[in-house]
């Protein structure tokens, strides 16, 4: 995973609450077998007209937001389906940072597996960022993870909270499977002791030739 330290880039606003992952990457693209190449499908139904032409009304298609790498969003961003195709699309489109008042749990988790920094800021600050983005063409922000700040060139500087562990994961681009496997001995010990907790866990019967009805 690509580490994340600081990032400066243009901001693109998507001014809707409860943007769900079905909107980010619709179902038909969840049948692919790779993790790459989802950027062209991001916000597909909003972004393209029937026939595949870009929808000029959708904000990411406005020329002034081309090349944006920071996504400004509203509350409960990424709700619904657990599909990791959504953050894969966000990243592949070119966004490294998503700023919103709140994120849905699964999407938030998925960001940290993909080197995306989700920044949670209070409603009023997000409102203010929407205003600044709309009023200043080419509006840019710098997200500084070590110092946990978001700042612009006009003197705005906002602090954000992020868990120490998650911060470390992003800063170092850590593979958390590798981290967990450092505790291999504990996992094995747990497995040995497990049946005492729950005497029922490991007695499956063979269902290979099971009749359809019980």
């Amino acid at each position, binding site marked *: 995973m690509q580490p994340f330290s600081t990032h400066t880039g243009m901001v693109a606003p998507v001014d809707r609450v409860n943007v*769900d992952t079905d909107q980010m990457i619709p179902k038909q693209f969840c049948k692919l077998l790779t*993790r790459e190449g989802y950027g062209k499908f991001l916000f597909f139904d909003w972004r393209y007209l029937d026939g595949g032409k870009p929808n000029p009304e959708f904000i990411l298609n406005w020329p002034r937001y081309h090349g944006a790498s920071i996504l400004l969003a509203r509350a409960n961003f990424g709700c619904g389906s657990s599909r*990791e195709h959504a953050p894969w699309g966000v990243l592949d489109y070119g966004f490294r940072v998503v700023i919103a008042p709140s994120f849905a*749990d699964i999407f938030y*988790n998925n960001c940290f597996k993909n080197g995306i920094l989700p920044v949670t800021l209070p409603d009023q600050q997000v409102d203010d960022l929407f205003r600044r983005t709309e009023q200043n063409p080419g509006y840019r922000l710098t997200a500084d993870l070590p110092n946990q700040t978001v700042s612009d060139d006009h003197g705005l500087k906002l602090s954000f909270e992020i868990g*120490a562990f998650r911060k470390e994961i992003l800063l170092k681009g850590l593979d958390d*499977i590798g981290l967990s496997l450092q505790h291999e001995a*504990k996992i094995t010990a747990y497995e040995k002791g497990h049946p005492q*907790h729950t005497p029922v866990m490991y007695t*499956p019967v063979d269902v290979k030739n099971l009749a359809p009805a019980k």
Partner: protein
Amino acid sequence: MPSRTMYEKIWEAHLIREEPEAPALIYIDRHLIHEGTSPQAFAGLKAAGRKVRRPDLTFAVMDHSVPTVDRMLPILDKDAAGQFDALERNCRETGVRLFDMHSANQGIVHIIGPELGITQPGQTIVCGDSHTSTHGAFGALAFGIGTSEVEHVLATQCLSQFRSKAAHIVINGKRPHGVTAKDLILAVIGKIGIADGIGHVFEYAGEAIRGLSMEGRMTICNMSIEGGARAGMVAPDGTTFAYMEGRPFVPRGKHFQSAVEYWKTLTSDPGAKFDTTVELNAAEIAPQVTWGTNPGMVTSVTSRVPDPAAFPHTDEQKAAAHALEYMGLKPGTLIVDIPLDRVFIGSCTNSRLEDLRAAARVVAGKKIARTLKQALVVPGSRVVKAEAEKEGLDKVFRAAGFEWRDAGCSMCIGMNDDRLPAGERCASTSNRNFEGRQGKGGRTHLVSPIMAAAAAIAGHFVDIREWNVDGAE
């Protein structure tokens, strides 16, 4: 020991390691996988030279993209065929048990887990699907995970997780005639909204929850994620144990008895502390119908489509106006005056035998409205399908004009050919009315199976309480 919630008990029983400021490492008892979110996880595992640690605790099924028509025909959708091939190959190479689309036990992952007894009280259960919350109905800690986490569980049989907060959702009183589990959970989401559950596990309690069958409890827990909570749970009780006994993966004889003794200890202790409590009175809940583009945009069947201006916050006003535009609805329209194009009875929310029986009782001896373009019944599993056919439910549905299909996710998500065309309106027993969920431009109204059945007959929504059918309980 201090009083603990059921969530805390199961969490602590699965802790491998927990340190301040860091996520805990918890052991996973059951890992369910499907063709949609697993190929990249297996590929990642292979690329890193890692193995599936516990193939015996991993169960795979094909459900999201499977055709619900004749499966002996070739799969023309090459992307879907690619998913099936990948799952089949990955399971063969790693020794994971697979219920492929020709298995007699195939079905939606959240239907077959409980049906086969793979799902048991006290377990930790994960799956790369947000509706994994369904399994919490048994008093298990079950939640959806992303594909990177699927890879993590394949490699380690553990998950790195932060502790959640616990919310107590108490539904007091008795469920009125014609009000189902689906109506209860839609009413809960209508009350709390779709984001209040973020960071929480819901434990459902109260007389109305106790009075539900396992099928009803699964419907409730299934939609926890629509309230923002990753997991929902119901304490196991006699109803749970009676459901479990004799299922293929459930222990038998004295092992079953000792399992039940353990399962009984899972209940939240008296005085256990919840971070939030929400109370509802079942007697005040009417049959529910969604009018917008998320499950929190819901109202009683006796109400009208709301006026966006009536919402307190600007965000909500904008969202409601946008939703009504997408849904092609005008404020003030009576819910019962909304005409329908299609009806879909299926999905991991409502496709179990009990759902199909109730819907069949509503449609028995009647015909679907002539204005309807399609009415679909998609059983949640092939076992449900076989049992329903044994009871003659397929004949009841077919005689009324419904199509009777093979098991899978179908039009809930539209990854196969079952899709809602643009501009058309569907009464659906599924869980998400998001824009484009059932098909680009499709307009979804979430309802209970008996409401969907009655709407198919009438061609529009009806107050099922006025229909004198025993299907309305």
